[in-house]
């Protein structure tokens, strides 16, 4: 699989660490236990496009949000997670 890193260009997937579905919003510290359990443990397993966290560990070390079609493995988009969350690049 080839993943186009926004900083390093197209690289083989063996350079990346895979974390799982990209759930962006961490609940508030005082949110309900259910909200926290959902955040930590519950993940959709879509057949088709989905967003996932990957880190370019053997490259720039950026955490990325990779939109990927689980059916075809097509990479639909790759964006730095920090920028997506409104932080500096």
């Amino acid at each position, binding site marked *: 699989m080839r993943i186009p890193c926004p900083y390093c260009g197209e690289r083989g997937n063996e350079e990346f660490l895979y974390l799982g579905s990209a759930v962006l919003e961490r609940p508030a510290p005082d949110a309900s236990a259910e909200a926290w*359990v959902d955040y930590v443990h519950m993940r959709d397993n879509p057949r088709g496009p989905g967003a996932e966290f990957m880190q370019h560990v053997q490259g720039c070390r950026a*955490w990325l949000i990779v939109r990927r079609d689980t059916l075809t493995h097509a990479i639909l988009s790759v964006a730095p997670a920090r920028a997506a969350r*409104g932080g500096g690049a």
Partner: protein
Amino acid sequence: MNGAQPMRLAAGGAIDRARPLGFTFDGRAYAGFAGDTLASALLANGVRLMGRSFKYHRPRGPWGAGAEEPNALVELRTGARREPNTRATVIELFDGLVAQSQNRWPSLRFDVMGVNGLFAPIFTAGFYYKTFMWPASFWEKLYEPIIRRAAGLGRAAREPDPDEYDRSHLFCDVLVIGAGPAGLAAALAAARSGARVVLADEDVRPGGRLLAEAHEIDSAPGVLWAERVAGELAGMANVTLLARTTVFGLFDHGAFAALERVADHLPEPAPHQVRQRLWRIQARRAVLAAGAIERPIAFGGNDRPGVMAASAVRAYLHRWAVLPGRRGVVFTASDDGWRTADALLAAGASVEAVVDARPDPPAALMRAAGARGLRVHAGAQVVGTHGHLGLQAVDVRLPSGSSLGIDCDLLAVSGGWNPTVHLASHQGAKPVWDAALAAFVPGRLPEGLAVAGAAAGRFTLAACLADGAEAGRAAASACGHAAAPLVLPRAADEPAAQAAFFHVPGPRGKAFVDFQNDVTVKDVKQAAREGYRSVEHAKRYTTLGMATDQGKTANVVGLAILAEATGRSIEATGTTIFRPPYTPVAMGAIVGHHRGRDFRPARHTPMHDWAAENGASFVEVGPWYRAQWYARPGEKGWRDSVDREAEAVRRAVGVCDVSTLGKIEVVGRDAAAFLDFVYTSMISTLPVGRVRYGLMLREDGLVFDDGTCARMGPERFFITTTTANAGRVMQHLEFCHQVLKPAMDVSFLSVTDRWAQVSIAGPRSRDLVAMLVGPGVDLSTAAFPHMSAAEVEVCGQVPARLFRLSFSGEMAYELGVPADFGDALMRHIMQVGAPLGLVPYGTEALSVLRVEKGHPAGGELNGHTTARDLGLGGMMSRKKDYVGRRLAERPAFTDPARPILVGFKPVDRGQELKSGAHFLDPGAEARIENDQGYMTSVAFSPALGHSIGLGLLARGRERIGQQVRAYDPVRNRDIVVEVCHPVFIDPEGDRTRG
């Protein structure tokens, strides 16, 4: 020479008659020529019996002449290099080659299992499933031994593989798979555009079918054209030619796997030469020009040695100048098969008859045959064969229904061509049935892949050349390399029809579909009758196509018979999926260099060599090698060394290499706030020059890692992690920053390899450190108390970091210097420390000291424990948010009945504790409901003189002073232990702070 090779033609072939090669097969010596395969050399010597079949032990000879070979499997080489199930048709002959037939006993010519087909009834369709249904005792005692003896293939070597394997990468614009006419044209068209081209072919020479046929290109032998094109390609800087290289898999996004047989054609690899190389080829575009494989026809006795693919007969005649038989019969369902008759006649053999299953073969073929005096039986079929260990005659059923026997020693069979579509299907797209072509052709193609030539169902030579040239040009153009279309050479373009004719009804004897797995027409029909209508089910039930050849000759015939037996069309029946690898790949090639000590990289600390010189035994901790203890002369076992080291630390001073601890520099305006977020305790209140023990949780509330956090400046921290978690902590910090706290100004730098670090522990540690850092540093407890950090210099010249912190419970320091100074530092410390009684200590003594102090480590930080479980609940700040805080509060994690960290002593102090033992109340039955926790770490305490342990015990703190059982059924132990406080030595901590 020909006298010794009775079936070798006097002239012709791509063999070097000036280079005779000697080899043995089943212990008998033969001679062949350079350029031969083992199969062609054996056939030249008149040997056509090469093996016994898998289930029925039937005599077998080569069916084909290439990679698809199902029958002629042999054990190649001897000893550690012995390789089973190698195809004689692709083994390049070398001088001194040793091969053995396999799956026969006692000999190939006389095989007990084959004599009476004694066990044949066991092996019908679904035999695996049916036999597994029998009582287990029958299976183990009766059937399995019989089947193991009777069925099977070759034997693997018993010794470790002595060869080296390599893995390598290639990147290109256009990968062309196959160097036949289509592939050569594609590569040439692409290469002339300037695109980076890789051309890979499994054969040693380029040419593909041109090597096997009498085709002409531009009125000259086609082989010459192939050589000329290959020569031009070889001279181009933008082209990589990979001969002896099978592209065996297509993966996501244009990644291909290929196996290059670097030294398989040699008796053994040259020194430092790899045997095989696994290529990963990343191609922007690819052209699959893998050609086609001729399919068999299933009829009675179609497996007898001497029954061969018609295309293979032509290959042996033309490429290897070998006569596969003197009296031939051709049985065909295609126009192409007729060529074989001409080829045999040209080689001086007789052709007894051409039997065409089609009622009305093309008139032109009939006329030409008539002109040559050939006897033709149209609309006729071969129904059976005769001969003991090889073909002697065939039975032909004529259209009238009458039967005709024909004496012959060779039957060339042409069931038509199957395009080699495998790679086009590796991404899951199934091939589609082309009724006009009577063959499967590639269906929906993976992005970036084009199929050209016979692999796409274009069977004439002119079409292959044109198709390849256009595919190559288009692929290069898609990569931005425009090129003029290739001027095509002249070549034959007469269409060759083939019929969808797969098996002969009413066969006499077993009619094989899958030669290698001994699957017959009857088996496929039986599977259909028993309800296995799906092609995937029928495949597994009959084992059709599941042998090492993966059904390259069998699959299409098998599913055609299944289609007929279930009353469906071939389209409606469909095919099974093709998966990588296309041909077998040695595990060694996939593993490459990653075996034995090279399985993964080894990391050595800067003091490694010093430790090795000083008697260290090393233990692997993750990728690191850490000194476990330092043996001294006269010590009888590891315990002697460890006890001595631990005692020396408690009595005087010891030094331990702790360079493997993960070390991360955390810098930035928000560094303190960020560390507040990842540690359970408050870091932002830590003054510069002070150190705090830190605990990180996972977001699910369980403990992730622990270490120390030193504030080196207002916006600069130096944190340590456990050796095992260093990489994961770094990733975690980066995640927390980039995803959870993206607005924070903080950066991380892993400096694990930059610092060599030692722990100096014991009552005399201050004296030693003073000698190292000089009188300018005030080490008094008032000036530099426990949990302090400072930047100092060692020997007045080496910048260093000094921390006062303790893992052992003694007064202790950690001293870090730039990694390049690590070795010199250790030697210097040993020198100046000698008068103080300094000893180096390893990870075992370190562990003894920490168990004595009740510090949680690997056994306790096991991913199942909370901070409270470890007695560290007090470190969980209530004043701030941090990772893991919310779920650490869930009821299950705050249940007071949870097992909690306490210490254990054997009631009988002479007994030894073992970690892993489970705790039970005295008198309670050993059942899971009564489980009270388990022992996590143990050590022999030299300070106390007996075994001690740490463990997690339900309501442990309330049970201090009580007794429980430490029950260990795995090691058959059951002893009574006393529950105690987890800190065995100096619970008040006076020694640490003193």
